[in-house]
Structures are given as C-alpha cells and as structure tokens.
C-alpha cells in the first residue's frame, strides 16, 4: 500500500497537539471545501485534507497511524507485524487495501453483521460526480459512461476501493450546473440499509459559437454595414441545424434578434430562446471600388453618430 503523509497534508508536525491539528484542518477546509471553494482542484485537495483529519482527529486512529512508521509520500509499505492485532482485525488482509480504507476499517468493524450488540442498518454512501458534456449533447440528450473507484465493504466487512462502471442516460435539456439523481446507484447499504444514490453535476464545455445562460443561447451575428442598414436574410447556425434569420433594416450593433424556441430544451416540451447579437463588421481591406462607394456615401449622408456630444457638452455647461 502507498504511504500518505497525513501530517504533511495538514501542514503540521508529528507532535502537534489535537487543537492545532483541528485549526490546521479548518483553515484548509475553508480554502478547499467544494461547497465554498472556487479552486478547480479544490475538491481533490479537500478529499486529501479530510482523509488526513479523519484519522488524526481520533486519538486511537492517530496512534495506529503513528505506529505505521514514517515513509516518503507515495512510497510502498506494509504495516508492521502485530499492527493488525493491536489496532484492527488480526485476520484482515492488507492485500489490495489503501490507507484511507485501512483507517475507515478501524471504525468499519462496527458495521459488520454479527459483531457487538447486533447489526446496525447503515445507508450506502452517496457518490457525487461532475459530468462534462458538450452543448450538442445537452441539446439532444446523451449517454455517458462513468468509471469510478468507490469505497465498498467486502463480504468480510473490510472497506476496499473497487472500480465500478456506470452508464448514465442524460435526458435532453441539461443546463450548466444542473443536478441529476440516480436513485440507488451509490454504495450498497449495510445490514439492510438503503443503497446510496449517485448525483451528477452537469458541466457544459464552452462552445466556440454559442454562449449559454440557463436554457437561452447567445450568438454573435456579424453583419456588413449595408446588411445592417438595408436589412437582409442571413443563415445562422442553431443546435438543431441552420435557419434563415430576417435582419430588419436599420439594425444597430448590440441589438438582440430573438429566435424563439431555438435554445436548449426544457422540461414539458418547452425550449429556451436563441439570441443573435448584431455586430457591424467592416472589411479589413476594402477594394478601390468599395472605397469609392463609401466615399460617395460619406459625401451625401448627413448622419452624424456623435451629434449628441456637442448637445450634452452645451447642456452641461
């Protein structure tokens, strides 16, 4: 099994008193707890911190951990002879077990059938996973395969980490941050307790064209100056395929053109909308003829987009 330096993870020395360990844990938990942290690696870091604290906060577990000796983080090691007799079940094997499961097992014995005052019904563990899917997958619904390594009690009551595969059908209409529940797909219940659930947190990959707000989508729509002034019928992409959009004459930059029900599907056969945001784009290199025509336009046009500058300055003074 691989060694983990629980003291190092919490940033404390081996002889640190319990109160200081608690303080160190709380400081790190504030920083990395997935419910309060924005650090993308926070969840993983918090798991490490919580695992370390789970063992070091308990005097019995801490003594058992100290008895393992000290190694480099990640170094392979075996508990010393008699360690199992002293702290765990002498008959338990350490084969295929990791440090977290080893220490969870020190209290896990109480869940085992037939031990102590009788079996206690324990619900299975809930699993929570983030599923990253594309916008196209959210639009039409998708099926994903999740490969997780999860803690499970074996037939002897020892906690082991085992690989499990879940195939999940995600219904269409997922929005970023939405949660899905798969009842009974978490860890197995113990002694007749209910099975845990699997929770999926949906995260949408950024899309090169569409930006998402709930079930609405936003798309930049580049228009030439003459399309904006004269109006036009232009082809725009949507998640359901391209459609023709009628751009009204005198469309201004930044104006939102709404394509009703072309966003992400919602429940009850409703859909969000797609908003095309007009952007007036000028040619980077106009030809001689184009320049000539623009010059003619400049000569005849009385349009002054900065007319209000003078007006505002005059009224302010």
């Amino acid at each position: 099994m691989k060694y983990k330096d629980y003291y190092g993870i919490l940033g404390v020395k081996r002889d640190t008193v319990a109160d200081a360990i608690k303080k160190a844990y709380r400081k790190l938990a504030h920083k990395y707890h997935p419910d309060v942290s924005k650090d993308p690696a926070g969840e993983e870091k918090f798991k490490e911190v919580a695992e370390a604290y789970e063992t070091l906060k308990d005097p019995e577990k801490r003594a058992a951990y100290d008895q393992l000796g000290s190694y480099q983080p990640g170094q392979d090691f075996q508990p010393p002879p008699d360690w199992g007799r002293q702290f765990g079940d002498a008959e338990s094997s350490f084969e295929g077990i990791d440090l977290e499961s080893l220490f969870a097992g020190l209290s896990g014995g109480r869940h085992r059938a037939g031990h102590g005052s009788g079996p206690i019904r324990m619900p299975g563990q809930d699993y929570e996973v983030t599923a990253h899917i594309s916008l196209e997958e959210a639009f039409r619904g998708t099926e994903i395969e999740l490969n997780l390594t999860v803690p499970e009690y074996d037939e002897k009551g020892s906690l082991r980490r085992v690989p499990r595969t879940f195939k999940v059908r995600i219904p269409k209409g997922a929005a970023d941050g939405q949660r899905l529940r798969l009842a009974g797909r978490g860890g197995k219940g113990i002694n007749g307790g209910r099975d845990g659930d699997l929770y999926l947190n949906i995260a949408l990959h950024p899309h090169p064209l569409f930006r998402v707000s709930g079930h609405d989508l936003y798309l930049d729509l580049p228009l030439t100056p003459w399309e904006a002034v004269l109006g036009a019928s232009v082809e725009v992409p949507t998640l359901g395929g391209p459609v023709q959009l009628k751009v009204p004459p005198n469309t201004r930059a930044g104006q939102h053109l709404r394509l009703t029900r072309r966003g992400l599907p919602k429940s009850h056969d409703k859909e969000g909308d797609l908003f095309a945001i007009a952007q007036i784009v000028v040619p980077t290199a106009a030809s001689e003829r184009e320049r000539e025509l623009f010059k003619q336009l400049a000569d005849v046009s009385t349009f002054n987009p900065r007319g209000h500058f003078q007006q505002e300055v005059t009224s302010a003074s």
Partner: protein
Amino acid sequence: MQVNPVEAVWLAEDNEFSFPELVELSGLSEAELHELVDYGAITPVDPDSPQWVFKGRCLITVRAAYRLRASFDLDPHGIALVISLLDRIHGLEEELGSLRAQLPRHTART
C-alpha cells in the same frame, strides 16, 4: 462487462420530496431539518400543510447542509447562515454568467 444505462432524474422544480424522504436522503436528523426550515434555509411548498413537501432543488441544499455540518462542525443556525450566503453567491454568479453570455465574445474575453 455489460452495463445497462440508467435514467437520471433532474433535481428541479417539477419533482418533489416529502419531509421523511428529505431526512433519509440528506443524512440530517428530523430536528436539524426542522431547524433549517425554521431559519428559512429551505421552504416547504406549503408551509401551513401538516405534510411538508419540498421541491427537488431542496435536496441539493440539504445535501450541502449535511456536508457543511460534517466538515465544519456547524450547528443548524450556522448551516442556515452559510447556505443563505452561498445562495446569494450562486444567484450573483448566475446573473454574472448571464450578463457575460450577452456580451459580444471579443468583449467577454477581455
């Protein structure tokens, strides 16, 4: 190994949980859940009904409550306070995300 796909259910406005279901699924005790209702962290669909029913989204809130209690040793009042602040942050983040989505891309990137 053949794995059969399973249907997932959105935790949203259109599914509901009874009070005992929420107790079972959250890991919190009945008393703790009652206190969360008293402090306004979660609200039943009809608070005057003798049989409280909660919208699906409440399960997300009470699961967060359970994690916060376990990780920070918070009492129900502390949990309710943290949850109300987290709700405000999430609301502001959603608003910010929506405003960013409405900005033209070259502006949104700056």
